[in-house]
């Protein structure tokens, strides 16, 4: 748990990005909610519909709302053109602004409904126009309540903004997701402390503004507004002051191997004189689209993943043919350049505890078929939707008692504790060796191959320097070395390494200069 302070200090860019995202979302929420609240105060129907819609949005889990904006924006490209970003800041902003809508709207509408009717009658009676009434009476009297709504919205938004990591927007969620995957609890804690601290500070400052409005104390709300403006302003300066337009962005999925390979690639590029940014913890489905649109520049992906998800094929032409087809397809359809295979496979493989395998006399998937109805199978959240799961089930006639989803990290714990009897593991996973698991044979070749490949976005596909820096990695990593590096990150004892440390060790092991 040591080094949290050091990690916190290193979060400056994520912190700035988080502040800007949350502030923009609240500003956009305000921009929509305030006119809507004025309208709602003049019409009962508008109030009912607006509040109903905002409440409905609130029932959608934040993570799902963020993810939903990807297909929505993708379909909007038909209207706004191909330059419309579908990942990163825009969808995060829209989803969080929708989320911020409800508390602001509800407080504004309630405040208006609870204004003293005598005061409103007097406003009409002394001859105020509708606008004068709003500006001189309704707005100042509703301001403290609206401020309370903005406060609630801010705390929610700052918390929910950590989820923006999953759609490729840097935020304080980056260390949380990375830490969760690599079981680096210091990293998780640092992300939580930073985001909770930010929420507390924002809450205190907006509380000052709220009290300033309530007490009609210009000094109080002046200081609050000034501090908030300074905070957001310095985040903006920090974010856009430096010129890192040319930085190469390396994306990675939410698992240890992704983080390690991203660091391995990143350090080589830095040695070659490139500026590097990491976009960690991206959702698996999003990585490929982000690469095709050059929102990220480099990713490590797997032949079987691209084959099923992107090419939408379920046949199995064999390892080499699959790779060649993908290289060709990407060149023609997306402009993505497949630089080459790293050398190891990270395929799905069914694994069991060795004592359990002995007990059931199971060495291959064929042996499993008769006993499967008494067994629980575990997999990552994506696994049970994937064609290879269907393929394995059909090929071997497997009918399990129960199928349970776990995050990859917790899947192995489930196997250890007996909550799952067999899991859809990954062949490069260090825990297979460490836990002395038995990998079941696949005699009928139902499981396709998953060769790891380096893929370059159209933007840097022909960048000679990048290609030269990464070529030594092609074919250089065998599965034993990858397992060792993965295990170093996943283990929970004193031998645990950060992804960066593991990447340097891996570079050493495969004979590349470490730094």
């Amino acid at each position, binding site marked *: 748990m040591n080094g949290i302070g050091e990690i916190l200090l290193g979060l400056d860019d994520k912190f700035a990005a988080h502040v800007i995202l949350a502030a923009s979302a609240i500003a956009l929420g305000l921009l929509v909610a305030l006119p809507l609240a004025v309208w709602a105060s003049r019409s009962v129907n508008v109030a009912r519909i607006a509040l109903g819609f905002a409440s409905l949005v609130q029932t959608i889990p934040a993570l799902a709302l963020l993810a939903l904006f990807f297909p929505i924006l993708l379909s909007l490209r038909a209207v706004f053109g191909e330059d419309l970003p579908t990942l990163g800041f825009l969808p995060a902003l829209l989803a969080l602004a929708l989320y911020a809508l409800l508390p602001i709207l509800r407080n504004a509408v309630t405040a208006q409904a609870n204004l003293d*009717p005598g005061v409103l009658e007097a406003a009409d009676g*002394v001859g105020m126009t509708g606008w004068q009434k709003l500006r001189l009476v309704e707005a100042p009297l509703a301001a403290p309540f609206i401020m309370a709504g903005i406060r609630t919205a801010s705390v929610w938004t700052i918390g929910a903004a950590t989820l923006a990591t999953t759609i490729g927007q840097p935020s304080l969620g980056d260390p949380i997701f990375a830490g969760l995957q690599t079981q680096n609890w210091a990293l998780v804690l640092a992300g939580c402390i930073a985001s909770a601290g930010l929420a507390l500070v924002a809450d205190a400052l907006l509380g000052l503004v709220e009290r300033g409005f309530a007490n009609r104390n210009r000094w109080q709300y002046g200081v609050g507004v000034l501090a908030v403006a300074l905070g957001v302003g310095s985040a903006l300066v920090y974010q856009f002051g430096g010129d890192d337009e040319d930085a190469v962005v390396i994306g990675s999925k939410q698992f240890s191997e992704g983080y390690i390979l991203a660091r391995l690639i990143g350090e080589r590029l830095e040695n070659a004189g490139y500026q590097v940014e990491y976009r960690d913890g991206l959702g698996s489905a999003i990585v490929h689209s982000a690469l095709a649109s050059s929102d990220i520049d480099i990713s490590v992906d797997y032949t079987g993943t691209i084959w099923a998800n992107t090419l939408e094929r379920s046949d199995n032409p064999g390892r080499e043919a699959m790779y060649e087809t993908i290289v060709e397809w990407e060149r023609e359809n997306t402009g993505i350049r497949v630089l080459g295979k790293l050398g190891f496979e990270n395929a799905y493989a069914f694994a069991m505890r060795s004592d359990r395998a002995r007990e059931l006399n199971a060495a291959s998937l064929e042996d499993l078929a008769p006993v499967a109805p008494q067994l629980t199978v575990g997999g990552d959240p994506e696994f049970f939707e994937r064609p290879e799961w269907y393929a394995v089930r059909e090929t071997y006639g497997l009918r399990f008692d129960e199928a349970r989803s776990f995050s990859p990290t917790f899947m192995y714990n489930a196997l250890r504790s007996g909550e799952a009897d067999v899991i859809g593991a990954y062949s490069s996973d260090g825990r297979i060796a460490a836990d002395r698991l038995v990998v079941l044979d696949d005699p009928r070749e139902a499981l396709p191959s998953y060769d790891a490949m380096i893929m370059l976005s159209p933007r840097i596909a022909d960048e000679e320097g990048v290609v030269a820096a990464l070529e030594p990695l092609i074919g250089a990593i065998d599965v034993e070395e990858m397992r060792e590096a993965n295990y170093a990150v996943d283990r929970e004892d004193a031998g645990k390494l950060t992804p960066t440390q593991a990447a340097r060790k891996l570079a050493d092991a495969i004979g590349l200069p470490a730094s």
Partner: protein
Amino acid sequence: MSFEQVERHYGNVVAVDGVDCDVQRGSFVALVGASGSGKSTLLKMVNTLETPSAGRVLFAGENVEDMRAARLRRRIGYVFQGIGLFPHFAVGENIAIGPRLAGESLPAKRIAELLELVELDPEMARRMPDELSGGQRQRVGVARALAGDPELLLMDEPFGALDPITRDALGETVRELHDTLGLNTIMVTHDMAEALLLADRVLVMDAGKVVADEKPRELLDGKGGEIAQNLVSVPRQQAEKLARLKNGGAPT
């Protein structure tokens, strides 16, 4: 100003049912009736807080509905039971609001003068409304209504929420202001005694119609019909009972 065949319906409910009546310049008219008799609705049609379903209201010869509402209301002082001082404005700012809306600023001297007219300390201009008693607040309400030198003063149960002593004192203040400033005043009240003591002319309303239109003296002489006399009998009997009590007899 005058009402011409004015009606007001809310769905099937008829609040005001064909009122015809002229109000002369300089008069103090009281509109009296039970709750729901339509008197407040009739009053609010003058400054267009309510709009007639049929008929029209003329102010200085013009149909009020053809005039810009905000401009019309600045020419009419309005005092009502809810008072409605703006809680975020100081007393002085509350008084100066009408002229401010018209783009003028009311000099501090004039604010002090208005406060003195309603018998308040001019120092109060800097106080906030929540520091004032109910009676003081309604005095400020009257000062606010007078700030724009209105051609007409409308009062809707202006003393309804005040204690009897404050109520009596403020009633007299308003009557004096009416005389010294040469105002034109219409006051809605459910209290016949108040109407008889303050007004020059009393209109009695029942179920949306004006059922009596008499001078106070004539009402006390038994004119105006049964509904009006029922209302007059309440303060009269109270006065008689009090007289008997004073002379050593039983109240009934």
